[in-house]
């Protein structure tokens, strides 16, 4: 078919399963009946599944208000502080 505006030939493209005609001259786009809705639907499906939340800071178990600032652990898991090792066993 020819472009209704500049009469250059139009080429058919498939965009996400929707047939659209684009003018080879003025780059205008012709949509058949229902194709605009089809494109809108495709667009909403594209954005609907919310992107996964960005990997936030590690979730810590609840702690009291007077607790140490989160993440402020002394010695770490693999190199426990000797003094704490003693505390674990003391009355």
């Amino acid at each position, binding site marked *: 078919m020819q472009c209704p505006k500049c009469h250059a030939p139009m080429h058919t493209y498939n965009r996400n399963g929707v047939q659209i005609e684009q003018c080879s001259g003025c780059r205008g786009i012709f949509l058949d009946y229902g194709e605009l809705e089809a494109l809108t639907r495709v667009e909403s499906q594209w954005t609907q599944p919310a992107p996964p939340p960005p990997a936030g800071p590690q979730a810590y*178990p609840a702690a*009291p208000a007077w607790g140490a600032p989160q993440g402020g652990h002394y010695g770490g898991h693999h190199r426990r502080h000797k003094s704490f090792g003693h505390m674990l066993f003391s009355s």
Partner: protein
Amino acid sequence: MTVLPALHTAARAAAHPRPHHPCGCAPHTLADRPDATVVRHAGTVAKAHAPGTDPAALTLRLATARALPGVLLAPLRPDPLPVHDRLVTFWPYGTPVDPDTPDDAPWEAAATLLARLHTSPAPAPLPPMRGPAKAARALARLRAAGPHPARAPVERAWATLPPWARAEAPMPPSTTVCHGDLHLGQLVRAPAAADTPPAPGPWRLIDVDDLGTGVPAWDLARPAAWYACGLLPPEEWSRFLTAYRTAGGPAVPPAGDPWPALETAARALTVQTAALTLVKALAAGRDLDEVEQAVVDACDRMA
């Protein structure tokens, strides 16, 4: 006069009931502190309890351990034996948690045993759990030890506690059996049954001196305090808490924030730990290390 030689003699006699039995066992002194002396002879442990221990209360605590052998290590004799001016109890030797590999700490076993203890009906009329009394004693020792710049935040934190947690009023009424002094030194592997191949026996709680009825959150409060002070890694605290909840422990709600239930006891244990570290640092004439400072800092944030 030290009770140690007489305690070794008593342990030997308990380990080898036939008199004059020749014995090449090497006796071991496991602890020799003002509040307790503990020796081992072969598979028998003898403990001389603190001077002034009430014999009736100790006998009730021993009866509880005998009635709950799936939770507490059971004593070898039902009654304490007077040795000089001390009361002595006898126990099978159990293998303790290795202090050199605390990363292998049996948090799940500790939590499960506590949950079982807390859900067991008291088999005998028990005196109150002595946790708050021990916290108050730690503060008294701090006050007697002399001035220290970190004493003020510890005292301020102590003042935030309700009277029952400072042993100035009775605990809220409770029939829950509590250990009263849980830490990793209070777990041993019971001796395996004689007819089973050499394998580690099941974990059991030891030390009935502070056992009694009371607020069960006290038994979770040391791990809770260590976690709150930033000392116990979150994974280990989660393992302990999850195992306690999974076993149906009543000290915290089954889900959600456990801190409203733990708050008072965890504060008390944090203050008690801070007070005793200050006593030790004063006696040794040294500064606090970063772990001890973390406990004092937690007191400072309380008030």
